[in-house]
């Protein structure tokens, strides 16, 4: 097939760069990742306080990657993203429950529960993919939003299962008070999600996604089966969200419907993903960390202004969408091209 | 009345018009002829401000209209009947006409003009309450021209009124245009029906691949060899 050939065609590269490139890292991107990985041992960042910021950054970044898989490729904004993440979190938390207040007391270890949560979330994503299949952009977004609100409503109302608005206190993942191990767990998750999504989008799936995102009828006419690709995309994205939900549940050890599933949580992820740039996957990662730091700094510097960071999120998102829709990643790509051209010109001069 | 100087225009990176120059004086009936895709409609769209020219100047009634927006240009007394007609399909014939007179404040004048166009197109008067979307092709053309008339323009530009019409309807429409012209209105007509057009117009320009290649009195153009062989098929 022609598509696969195109996708498989790679520039000739040597050794390690080649391998990195295959899993979606440019050399500079990889260096950034290594820096991130050693950060917890470098003084200001090694404090528990700042480690929490790093964890939160990685958590947001990973969400943005999973979100971008649908929003940036098949052009469907999954407005129920936070609810699906919450579904994963709740599944794992309920399975881990041992207290007699709930009807389920399996006491399953979070390590397995997280994956079950992810599977449940993935399954709902599968259904959501089918539901929104025939719907174009806006309809699909609203439908996903309604599904998200339905899940939120269930979490609030199935009191015997979820304790309703009171929320759950799931057990923590590790028996340690240090944040460092958690950082490496979420960092691994983030990298794994990124690599999986990148490999998928690098394959002929990615081309099919983009074709569907551009024009679903034209894509169908050229033999791309929308059902298969859209449903797969939703399933994968929601699976990742569910997994991250599991991490949330067992790291923050507190879960209320409002705090994880609310529409505004989806909007936060959406803002990060869009400011980062749609359709690159790594844009969100690049944005999330500086953002979290900036925001947490704001929060500690101006304690009297709660939610200022959210306003800034919103304003930035609006500005980016009007004036620079390519986002941060688009800018980086553009700058890289410029530098390359400049270098070539310079070399050509000699 | 209308003067177009060295216009370059197009869509995005695609340039369609190259140094287009022409001029229409008051009271004239001028045709713009050319093959498909020559840029006739693009010329009209540029004049009316739907497309901004990359280069050149358009003057209407001694005012530079290049920087103006469409509704400002229409307000100055220039009316445009597009190829796709752009009727308000979910509104009645009457409402379409009322909207055509949007720029006119005086209700009495509006009523008079409506009488005038109903007189011009009696078929429309019979279908006053009918939705524009349910009119026949010919009736739509008439409605579009009538709507264009409603603003009491000094110059009306009509894009291919004969497109897709049966011959007898074409004659109807052309007759209506002639009557308008006799009433003192300046007309710029874009047409593919060259024989008929050269019959009724005073002058004509021929545009090919975005450039004006010929111009002159209609009666002279009829005898021109190029026009004969390419457009009249003689």
């Amino acid at each position: 097939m022609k598509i696969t050939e195109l996708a498989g065609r790679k520039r000739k590269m040597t050794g390690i760069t080649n391998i990195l490139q295959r899993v979606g890292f440019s050399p500079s991107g990889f260096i950034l990742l290594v820096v991130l990985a050693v950060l917890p041992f470098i003084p200001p960042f090694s404090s528990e306080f700042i480690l929490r910021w790093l964890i939160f950054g990685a958590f947001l970044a990973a969400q943005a990657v999973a979100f971008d898989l649908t929003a940036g490729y098949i052009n469907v904004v999954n407005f129920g993203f936070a609810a699906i993440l919450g579904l994963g979190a709740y599944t794992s938390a309920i399975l881990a429950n041992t207290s007699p207040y709930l009807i389920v007391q399996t006491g399953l270890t979070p390590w397995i529960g997280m994956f079950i949560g992810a599977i449940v979330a993935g399954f709902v994503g599968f259904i959501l993919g089918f539901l929104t299949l025939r719907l174009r952009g806006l309809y699909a977004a609203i439908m996903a939003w309604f599904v998200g609100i339905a899940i939120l409503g269930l979490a609030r109302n199935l009191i015997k299962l979820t304790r309703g608005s009171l929320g759950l206190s799931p057990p923590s993942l590790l028996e340690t008070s240090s944040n460092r191990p958690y950082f490496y767990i979420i960092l691994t998750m983030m990298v794994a999600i990124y690599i999986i999504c990148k490999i998928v989008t690098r394959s002929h799936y990615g081309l099919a996604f983009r074709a569907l995102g551009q024009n679903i009828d034209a894509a169908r006419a050229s033999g791309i089966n929308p059902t298969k690709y859209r449903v797969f995309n939703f399933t994968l994205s929601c699976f990742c969200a569910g997994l991250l939900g599991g991490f949330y549940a067992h790291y923050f050890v507190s879960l209320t419907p409002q705090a994880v599933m609310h529409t505004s949580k989806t909007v936060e992820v959406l803002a990060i993903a869009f400011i980062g740039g749609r359709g690159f996957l790594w844009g969100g990662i690049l944005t999330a960390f500086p953002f979290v730091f900036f925001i947490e700094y704001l929060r500690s510097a101006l304690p009297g202004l709660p939610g200022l960071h959210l306003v800034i999120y919103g304003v930035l998102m609006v500005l980016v969408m009007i004036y620079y829709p390519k986002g941060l990643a688009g800018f980086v790509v553009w700058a890289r091209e410029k530098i390359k051209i400049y270098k070539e010109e310079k070399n050509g001069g000699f | 009345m209308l003067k177009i100087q060295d216009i370059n225009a197009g869509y995005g990176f695609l340039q369609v018009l190259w140094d287009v120059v022409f001029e229409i004086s008051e009271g004239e009936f001028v045709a713009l002829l050319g093959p498909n895709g020559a840029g006739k409609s693009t010329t009209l769209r540029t004049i009316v401000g739907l497309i901004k020219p990359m280069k050149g100047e358009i003057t209407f009634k001694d005012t530079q209209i290049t920087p103006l927006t469409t509704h400002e240009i229409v307000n100055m007394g220039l009316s445009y009947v597009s190829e796709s007609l752009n009727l308000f399909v979910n509104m009645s014939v009457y409402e379409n006409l009322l909207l055509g007179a949007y720029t006119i404040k005086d209700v009495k004048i509006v009523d008079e003009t409506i009488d005038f166009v109903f007189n011009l197109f009696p078929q429309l008067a019979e279908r006053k309450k009918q939705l524009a979307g349910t009119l026949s092709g010919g009736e739509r053309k008439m409605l579009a021209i009538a709507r264009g008339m409603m603003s009491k323009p000094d110059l009306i530009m009509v894009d291919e009124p004969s497109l897709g019409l049966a011959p007898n309807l074409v004659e109807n429409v052309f007759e209506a245009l002639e009557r308008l012209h006799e009433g003192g209105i300046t007309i710029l007509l874009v047409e593919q029906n060259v024989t008929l057009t050269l019959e009724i117009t005073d002058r004509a320009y021929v545009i090919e691949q975005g450039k004006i290649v010929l111009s002159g009195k209609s009666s002279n153009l009829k005898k021109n060899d190029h026009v004969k062989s390419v457009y009249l098929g003689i």
Partner: protein
Amino acid sequence: MAERINSNDKTKTRKPAKKRVFGKLKTRTSAWVVIAVTIGLAIVIGKVGGVAQVVNAVVSGGMWALLAVGLALILGVMNIPNFSHGESFMVGAYVAYFVFSPLYKYNLVSGSKFLFIVGPFIGFIAAALAGFILGIIIERLIFSPLRKRTRERWVMNAFLLTVGISFILTNGTNLVIGPNFRGIPRYWDVAPFSFLGVRLTVDRIVAFTIAVVSIAVLWFFLRRTKTGRAIRAVSQDESGADMVGINIQFIHTLTFGLGTSMASVAGACLLFMFQAYPTVGLKPLYFAWYVVMLVGLGNVSGAIVGGFIVAFLQAGTQQFIGVAWEEVVPTIVMMLVLIVAPSGIFGSEVKGIQEQ
């Protein structure tokens, strides 16, 4: 500009007339079925739960209709799926609160009868004005620049922008005014009326009346005035509107202002039910969208009926299925509707929504 001309060419290659008539018939039938079911539901609710339930549903139906009409208007004329509609509601609630409360306090001292009656209306008018101004600012600041930059993927981009606006407004309010609930027990301290054996407060009656009157005025404005006709013209064919000399920018600003203002009025009228707080708009937004998706995007007249349909569906859910499922039933209903009639039961009137 090129985009606009393209979209016109599309109207030319519309579906053949025969098919459209059939399509219309089909949507008509489904509309009648839904209306009949709603009336049946109303009767059953009346029989089982008492007339009070029905009256309550009618009152909230009026409000959902008012909200949905504003949403549908903005959607139909400007192709903007407004996710910040709830924030217009919120602004209305706050403005009414901040205008009415001092008046109320003053009145406790002065005891002016006139002010007692008129005070709430001053709050409503202030809310309507504030909403109108907010709409104008948003349109000028955000949509106008976007429209000039690009018309590509307009619907989705506009939608996401309104998401951003909603986010800014809720969090901005939280920042400036704080998260506290600000409400009033009632606007008019009068004993409730009795109607069909149902006790109805003056507040409710007035809220319903205002909803009905606002919708009627809007209807008249759109049908009978020159500017209203221009608004409809823009919604049907933007280039055509441009060609007859309508200032589209002005119409857009006006429309957004009107739509926003209607939501603000709803927020003000319902202050006695929904206290003002930053995210108070979420539920109204949800219902407005529910209505609009159900009846067909951008269908203004459908939205009026839809408000009542939704109110009865909700009343029925509470009565027969249980409050716990209040958020689940709409999702299922919407799924079914979108499967049976993908462009809503009354049909969509928005061009360009079908393209991505």
